[in-house]
């Protein structure tokens, strides 16, 4: 059962074409407070394009997006939306030449964080960045970089968090701690999280709801258990392999 309150994010018949290639086809879904919604699907399924459209980085070909009731394609409304949400991706880095603390300070100012030093200290502690706090970003390992990106994503205490494969380059220990943190913060702060990952166990463990995308279309949705049942699989990984391989064949 999903919450009865109105969604913080609504997507209605969203499509995106790049010339003749249709990357996203009439996708509709909602995201509620206190919910982790997992987007899953093989490479090229349209997950990242959807996230980029939600962030207003890519403009949709058709369809509607409403975040907090506002439209991210309109620049004034986008500004208001983005101050209340955040994003982290393994594929995006932070300014190389700056130190970790300096990098976070830049983003604290961009998001208008009150008491930024205090906030940065909390995040450094939370994401295990204490030893690298005064190191240049370029010297960080990929795991530390991912943690720094996550710290940046929490700098404004977002109400909505979009995470694109956030644990992809983390070791199992830090990945597990990050997942636990996400589940905890979702519960305590009633945060809405949209999450993509290729780790099916992770998706099964933390997602309240799932959208299964393939070739830009939603082909399955529901709780992880419902999606597994829908495709008559043993678990989510089995479903994923079945869909990716069946369609290719």
């Amino acid at each position, binding site marked *: 059962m999903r919450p009865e309150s109105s969604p913080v994010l609504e997507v209605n018949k969203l499509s995106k074409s790049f010339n003749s290639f249709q990357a996203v086809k009439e996708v509709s879904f909602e995201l509620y407070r206190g919910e982790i919604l997992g987007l899953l699907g093989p490479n090229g399924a349209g997950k*990242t394009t959807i996230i980029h459209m939600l962030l207003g980085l890519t*403009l949709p070909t058709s369809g509607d997006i409403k975040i907090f009731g506002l439209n991210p394609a309109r620049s004034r409304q986008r500004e208001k939306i*983005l101050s209340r949400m955040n994003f982290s991706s393994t*594929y995006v880095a932070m300014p190389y030449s700056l130190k970790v603390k300096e990098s976070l300070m830049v983003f604290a100012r961009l998001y*208008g964080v009150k008491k930024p030093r205090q906030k940065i200290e909390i995040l450094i502690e939370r994401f295990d960045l204490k030893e690298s706090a005064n190191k240049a970003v370029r010297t960080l390992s990929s795991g530390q970089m991912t943690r720094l990106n996550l710290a940046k994503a929490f700098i404004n205490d977002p109400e909505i968090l979009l995470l694109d494969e956030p644990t992809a380059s983390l070791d199992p220990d830090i990945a597990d701690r990050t997942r636990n943190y996400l589940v905890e913060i979702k519960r305590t702060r009633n945060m809405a999280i949209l999450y993509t990952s290729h780790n099916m166990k992770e998706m099964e463990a933390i997602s309240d709801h799932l959208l299964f995308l393939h070739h830009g279309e939603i082909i399955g949705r529901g709780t992880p258990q419902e999606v597994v049942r829908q495709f008559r699989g043993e678990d989510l990984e089995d479903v994923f392999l079945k869909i990716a391989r069946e369609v290719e064949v």
Partner: protein
Amino acid sequence: MSFRRISAMFLRHIYLYRHSFTRLLEIVYWPLLDLLLWGFVSVYITKLTSQGQTAPNFLAIFLGALILWDILFRSQQGISVSFLEEVWARNFLNLFVSPLTISEYLVSLMLVSLFKVAVVFLVSSLLAWLLYSFNLFIIGLHLLPFMINLIIMGWSIGLLTTAFILRFGQQAEVLAWGIAVLFQPVSAVFYPVSVLPHFLQVIARYVPASYVFEGMRAVIMGQSFPTGYLARAMILNLIYLVLVLLFFFRMFKAVRVKGLLVHMGE
């Protein structure tokens, strides 16, 4: 030594040139511009000596021109290289998923550009004074409108370059280093516009920097301050800045439609 391995590395670079028009262009671009610039400087000096004219204060003219040209160049770099810093760091997306607007971003780049110009101007003026006893401030208060015009022209070139990098990706990066220099021969930095062939003189009339350098030479040679030149430079600069800004915003929208913004720095 293995010839096979050497030829493999040679082939690697040939492939690179085959797939990159900008790299191919670079091979002829810089020598051509050097040839044009120093060719016109030579024509200028030869003309003066053959006509038996009194040689102007070359030290003041060349050093003054060099320092002022650097203002234009650093102003442009302050925009385009600062933008590239985010692309190289793969930090571009993080900035544009924050509440930062594109207008705020452009203003911040202009501020960086002003900071760079101030530092470069102070350092080069000081060095010119220490090493060559050349005091740029003999130009007096006229220096300020000269500098403002060069800074604005630098911004226009920087924004134009940035718009192309946004649209065509990092393969257009070479523009950040080379496009300002393209304007150097027709900006009459080290020689008067009259030295240029007629068709380049026509082009120079539409280049704001050419009026600034003509004005600088006039002031150094003790002639009256060329108010008309500065007015023309300012009008052209404002027209170009508005056009470039419109082009930039149009390009930014096109890039969002094509989904290219997310590929910046990949």
